């Protein structure tokens, strides 16, 4: 049984306490990286990262991209442009071009 963690600014992620998720309030990128490492060590299989910490998501993709767990995913908050860019980059890597067209 794995846990779910949410990493981000406290005011944005506090509400996820209600879902029973573990929250890791952070101030900056380095803290967020450390929080992701700690969450993994504590047995979190799914780690949501606030989308403004896009650098952390890139770092986690490199570090944990090939392994089945943990799944480090941008939280669907805000405009979601960065998260959609990430999906588009997957399509571009797999197909060679963005065939989904947005």
């Amino acid at each position: 049984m794995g846990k779910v963690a949410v990493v981000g600014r406290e005011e944005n992620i506090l509400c996820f306490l209600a879902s029973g998720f573990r929250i890791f309030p952070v101030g900056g990128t380095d803290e967020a990286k450390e929080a992701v490492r700690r969450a993994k060590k504590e047995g979190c299989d799914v780690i949501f990262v606030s989308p403004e910490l896009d650098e952390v998501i890139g770092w986690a993709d490199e570090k944990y991209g090939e392994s089945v767990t943990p799944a480090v995913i941008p939280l669907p908050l805000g405009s979601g442009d960065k998260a959609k860019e990430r999906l588009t980059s997957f399509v571009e890597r797999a197909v060679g071009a963005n065939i989904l067209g947005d």
Partner: protein
Amino acid sequence: MAEIRVNPTRMELKKLKNKLNTARRGHKLLKNKCDELMKQFLDVVRESKTLRTELEGTLAEVVEEFGCAAAETDPRVMTEALLLPGFEGEVMTETKNVMSVIVPVFRHKDSDPSVRGGVSYGFAFTTRSIDAAVREICASTEDLVRLASLEKQAQLLCSEIEKTRRRVNALEYILIPQYAATIKSISMKLDENERSNLTRLMKVKDMMLEGRGAGTDQ
């Protein structure tokens, strides 16, 4: 295409022909695998994009309501209310084999709607907006876990497609042409040897016949 440097013998020719057959079979299999992976990958990406757009709308409302609640309530009361959630946010991690790619499937532990407590705090000190936000977020928990599952699957399938496509291209444009060119060159060399041998034999036969003819004349 550059040939492989091997001895032009029948043994090597046979080995190379076997290798070429295996390479062609592997190429066909990998191409089929790549096509099927691509189909699955695009389905996953489309689904995940739709789900993400839906969740962005829901969570934006939740965060807004939570912001209102946080403004109206004492932060300590707010944290206290959320400290003991209605259910445990745990996931069951199973794995699925998609064309020999192991991908995770996360399932939310409390998938039975009757189990969901949602609001698990007293109403004495909290406001109404926090109740609505908590209910909303509890309702979207399962979708959040499904989104995580889909995006991780997309990530793993993407890297596998990339690898498989490289292998297909390496077989199609490098290995198979190399084997074909080497087989052709070995066959040409063997044919040439055969012809030269035949010519030598014919020449020897002619010389022998000439020698015998000369002997009978004397």
